[in-house]
């Protein structure tokens, strides 16, 4: 039962949230410019890492905001929660 730190509301129970899967998957700016394979990559291919992961959550039964979470997929330790548009912590790029 995760306790998820919403950047606005603070720590709330998992049942108030929905998970939106892997974060930072950019929609191709010009879909026509990409090949079917690249489009498939955007649509379906996922990193699904064992370990450090960045994913999107939405506080559906709360402030309604989408935000990103850095979570370890084995221990479930959450090292950061950050707003859409913000750089993931520890990401220099």
């Amino acid at each position, binding site marked *: *039962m995760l*306790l998820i730190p919403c950047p606005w509301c603070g720590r709330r129970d998992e049942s108030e949230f929905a998970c939106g899967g892997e974060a930072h998957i950019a929609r191709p700016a010009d879909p026509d410019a990409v090949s*079917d394979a690249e489009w498939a990559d955007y649509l379906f291919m996922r990193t699904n890492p064992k370990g450090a992961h960045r994913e999107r959550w*939405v506080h559906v039964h709360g402030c309604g*905001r*989408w935000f990103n979470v850095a979570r370890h997929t084995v*221990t*479930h330790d959450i090292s950061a929660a950050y707003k859409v*548009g913000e750089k993931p912590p520890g990401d220099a790029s």
Partner: protein
Amino acid sequence: MREQSHRLAEGGRIDRATPLRFTFNGRRYGGFAGDTLASALLANGVSVVGRGVKYHRPRGIFSAGSEEPNAVVQLETGAHTLANARATRVELYDGLVATSVNCWPSAEYDFAAALGLLSPLLPAGFYYKTFKWPASLWMTYEAVIRRAAGLGRAPDGPDPDRYDKINVHCDVLVVGGGPAGLAAALAAGRTGARVILADEQNEMGGALLDGHDEIDGAPAQDWTAEAAARLDAMDEVRCLPRTTVFGYYHHNFLAALERVTDHLGPQDAGVLPRQRLWRIRARKVILATGAIERPPVFAGNDRPGIMLAHAARTYVNRYAARPGRRAVLFTNNDGAYRAALDLRAADVEVAAIVDTRPEPTGDLPAEAESADIELIAGHAVVATHGRKRLSAIEVMALGDGGGQVSGEARRIPCDLLAVSGGWNPTAHLFSQSGGRLRFDATGACLVPAVAAQATRPAGAGNGTFALDGCLAEGWAAGAAAAAEVGSRARGRAAKAPGATVTPEEPPGDYGVVPAPGHPEGGPKHFVDLQNDVTAADIALAAREGYGSVEHLKRYTTLGMGTDQGKTANVAGLAILARLGGTDVAGTGHTTFRPPYTPVTFGALAGRDVGALSDAARRTPMHHWHERAGARFEDVGQWKRPWYYRHPGEDMAGAVERECLAARNTLGIMDATTLGKIDIQGPDAAELLDRVYTNAWSKLEVGRCRYSLMLGEDGMVMDDGVTARLGRHHYLMTTTTGNAARVLAWLEEWLQTEWPELRVYVASVTEQWATITLCGPNARRLLAEFTGDVDLGTQAFPFMAWRAATVGGIAARLFRVSFTGELSFEINVPARYGLGLWTAFMNAGEKYGITPLGTEAMHVLRAEKGYIIVGQETDGTVTPADLGMDWIVSSKKDFIGRRSLGRTDTARPGRKQLVGLETEDAALVLPEGAHLVENPGQEPPVPTIGHVTSSYHSANLGRSIALALVKGGRGRMGEAVHVALEGGAARAVIRDPVFFDVQGSRLHG
């Protein structure tokens, strides 16, 4: 009712002033308040309480706690029955009825005991090796196996009790109310921290309730009472007796089961629930869960009368029940000597103490010797006797290293053998939390090593077995946990409670106790008493290659019973380790999983059952529909009128009547459940452009447009009409089932992908009641209610909307139609929905106004070839498949567009929406039926499509159907076969629009 033959004259924590009656296996007995069923049975001299699951050997009470493997009973009867109650944890109440499980005709005489003779044929996993021939008979064998397996019986009726659930947050959760837990709770509680102390027993005190310890110079039980009282007086401390913390999940979330009224029996508990599930979010957790004594594994160790030493001590001290008259103690450690001393003090003759250690030199052995108890050191029990109760044991000398026995066997008559092989810290919750255990070679046990969460083990649960250590560790843990959450005590510094303890020597070796003869041939050495797993089974598993602890468990079922191997697992691991020349550090252990003890399904379901199992969403007009005879259908959580049944009518009749009324005069429909989303902002049209397939910039204020919404995979996700309310203001409608999903979809794209768009969206579904008037008389009736808007076709054309006053209510009128009739959708604030509906019904009587259910609506729209998302679509259908290319803009990007160009998605010959006309006009095809080329073919018969919608159309006087058919649009006029039960029907592929192809009614 008999005398309580084994009841001590005095002592114990029972209330002799409150005698209780109970029945076990049909016989009546007496006990006292404060007894458990087990202690009361022992007090009455009952020895056989059940039978082993496999060999059906008689079994007696083995422990005094949650770890009980044997005394599993059926409690009560009928709907109140409990299938597998542990007698050691059932508090006695007046009138209790219990029976043994899994034996016939009784626990005393069980026919299946004959299976014991077959036992050589039933080693671990025997069923994998046989019953394969003939294959046809396996189901028969299986039925027999199934009847023989299983313990208790399920109730025969729905549960008469209620269950509760509550969430709670705390700074410090202390699990276990023994000395360590009480000290922890006191230390944390005095800081003002929010503390919860839970213990599965009926009172706090833990092991202190079973003995004669002293704390701070006073009897420990007085200290316990005082500690409990002090905790009760602290505002922020909550003590939960009868509450088992059974699961330790992620992020310090723990679940506990409180047995609120179980101890009162199946009487009317009034307003109280039977059990309450506590869902606890703790900042810090202290696990003071104590330890479980483990049995030595020796030949014939399963007979009634053989019991854990600490349990024997508990029965005499706490319950004043004598588990036997003449006892022998069999141990490898000092601690168990306390049992001998206490038994002796309770007038149980202690015939001898058999200690596997060659020279026990500790204070406790010395005390026993000075009490004139015979000490037989360096010996082991090698056999036991007695049929339904132990009558004697045999002991032999252990050779060097303890690997074998030698010399003469000495027979000692006794009816109680109290056994101890040392202690296992109750590390279940610690391990569940993700914490790592380490094997402690001295104690031969697994102890908490590395915590994974904010967890502190303390006391015996942490391998600290001496009382003074338990108190100190508990106190320190409580103080530290409180300090970590920023809670500090004000006032005088307080001191941890202290105790003086008799030191103990380290325990002796732990493993299988040898017996003479072939190790696999003689009497069985039971390891798991509940599942009848023996040391030989373990050896067999290892021999056959099932040597990892997980394979061992699954192959032998070791530790898979209702006790989850609390007394068996470590013994099993030790045996396996020895076979492999390693120790438990080498074998590892199986995974500890919730629940610590079994948890009632009802409690986990809580009050989410019956009428509260899920919200039933109803529109403001619902009760009117009910009174009008509506049958409802579930659409998501909504209840929608399906059809209105008049007296004497069947469904078909009702639907026909409704359909005809809508086409011929006037229908009225409750469309409140359609999703409505208010969209505002300068970029609103841009948003619509991006989420819908068609273009929005040119839509004028006052007009509406129909569209499709696709998933990014190009498949149709939703459809609906959106109206332009103002320059930057739109109202989107969605299907009932997708209302929440579409709103969430818009929010997601706006927040995550297009934050630059200046648009806000909000659900207004529930703000409005929506009434649809449709049919030739719709305009006429509506005109009676509104004066401020011209309803004429010129002024108010199809696909327009107007603000208007309807019946005095500020409303929005939409000229949209799902039935193909002249139709107005009237939105009024929900509070007026019922009033306006009723007014329409009254005023519309002269037109024969007829309420339409969803079924009639579906027929009417099918006549027009309109799709229903979720019926004509299934997540694999594109706009082109539906023949709706006309709605797909090629001039802009929108969600899902790119996917439409993929090779398979753009492939010709995909399944396409068409109409079907059966040759037999009376035949209504079943929805879901498949179209085939050649019905006579042997399976597999390839399908070329399926019927998505099919009805009898009263307006057309024949059946109609829609279907998705491979290459369908290219096959107009072709005949196809529809595979049906017992044959096939012929139908012709046609355009999906069956009625008013020109749309004159719609526009009229």
